[in-house]
């Protein structure tokens, strides 16, 4: 049944016991993203230690998909470099926009493969991407404010599809 595939145990576990949840200090940037169609919200904080993402913490209000996805993301990218985040994020985005035809790379996405079922429900893709878009946005702003670098291009949020 598709519903079981959508709500895998990993997702429900992350929803009930989210990782990195609860806002912490210090941080270099805080971003707040909402999904205007349903009102879900994420506040995300982080710092950049050179190229490395640190001090990641978040708070949010929303459905199991949006909250669990943010939780999984934080476990995947905390203490990773911006380049590593881009690879993970690109892989997750490709999975979400794959209409159920993309085979997820378990090496890269780990628990993130649990969200494969979301791709079959167009209305839920935005839920799954809420935290990821917030982190992308935070990194763009942070890097913009520090120095310009070629890497920025790979982390521009896909606004045309996800942020209507």
């Amino acid at each position, binding site marked *: 049944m598709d*519903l079981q595939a*959508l709500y895998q145990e990993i997702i*429900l576990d992350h929803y009930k016991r989210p990782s990195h949840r609860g806002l912490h200090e210090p941080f270099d940037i805080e971003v707040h993203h909402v999904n205007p*169609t*349903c*009102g879900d919200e994420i506040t995300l904080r982080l710092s950049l230690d050179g190229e490395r993402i640190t001090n990641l913490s978040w708070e949010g209000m*929303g*459905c*199991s*998909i949006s909250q669990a996805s943010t939780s999984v993301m934080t476990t995947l990218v905390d203490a990773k470099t911006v380049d590593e985040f881009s690879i993970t994020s690109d892989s997750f985005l490709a999975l979400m926009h794959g209409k159920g035809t993309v085979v997820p790379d378990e090496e890269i996405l780990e628990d993130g493969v649990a969200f494969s079922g979301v791709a079959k429900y167009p209305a839920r893709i935005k839920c799954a991407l809420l935290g990821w878009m917030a982190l992308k946005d935070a990194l763009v702003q942070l890097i913009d404010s520090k120095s310009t670098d070629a890497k920025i291009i790979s982390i521009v949020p896909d606004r045309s599809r996800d942020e209507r």
Partner: protein
Amino acid sequence: MALDVARLKNDFPIFARTVRDGKPLIYLDSGATSQKPRLVLDAERNFYEQHNAAAHRGAHQLAEEATEAYEDARSKVAKFIGAADNEIIFTKSATESINLVAYALSNSNFTDAKRFHIGPEHEILVSEMEHHANLIPWQELAKRTGAKLRWIPLTDEGRLDLSNIDSLITSSTKMVALTHQSNVLGTINPIAGIAKLVHDRGALFLVDACQSVPHQSVDVKALDVDFLVFSGHKMLGPTGVGVLYGRAELLDEMPPFLTGGSMIEEVHMESATYARAPQRFEAGVPNMAQAVGLAAAIEYLERVGMDQVQEHEELLVNHAIDGLLGISKVRIIGPFGGIHRSGAVSFTIDDIHPHDLGQVLDDLGIAVRVGHHCAWPLMRRFGISGTTRATFYLYNSISDVDALIAGVEATKKFFKVA
């Protein structure tokens, strides 16, 4: 007398299809948009196949027929709400109808139509339960003109808190814009009583009737409002047609919003004069087929009887409320218990987000609306991010309601919420 839902359902082709792997469609989202009976689809098709031409233009037979069909539709709408033909303006949506009035007000500042002038000395009054469509046009009008936006707060039960209404409607109030029935709470507002107060203070009164005109008999003269808006697609009619009712003497003075062809009287290179209402407010070739479809929808509703529709929905919503209250952790958002309310019920379940509930219900073939329902400030008022909303119409049966209740129970089981 109870409605013969099984027979009515046959009139709606969409109920012949199934959803999510062969499940029958249980459609509880008519508050967002209603389904369409064959009569409406046929009327639209017949217009295009037999009478299509630009109304109010051309010297040929088809143009005459198109004009007649369009103007007959106007008469039908007018009679349905107790208005005169020239008090009915066709728009593309209720949203456009509200914007038309809001822009007419600010546009009037550049004309002699003093009745509508609005500036920093004025106030606009809305309520905390408004749909965004009856909030944002007024926020924008306030920004354009410097007028102050105020609002009527709500009681915890989800009704207008009228305890301070005397200080909210004052001699500075230019416009009061309220919903007749909340699209979220099911509350029916005491419009006629408020109308008296509004007019005593010399203000204008616009009522958003999107959730009332489709579901109960509405008479604009009995309500004594100045403007009333609703949309065709929520009342069995096509998308792309909305209605603005305006009192004739106001429409006669009111400046236009959209300008262009067919709303004019005489045009020179640098100036123009405008036609009388309703033409003054209908620039461009009108949405004729949609207006004709709406007239057919009204014919269908009248055949069933608006009082029967209302009674039927009340039966369904009370059954739903009883069932939902029997489920632990369910909280109804809005008034209930021995009162008149509309066929919309919103609720939350502790530990299950509305979007997740909606997803499981969808898997069972049950279509509900989840989220903030375009009433974000209302959600904030109740300290929630969203609700699940079921809305009923004449094609829903008691068994649809039972399916919803069973679906909510199944969802709790699925997410292991006790």
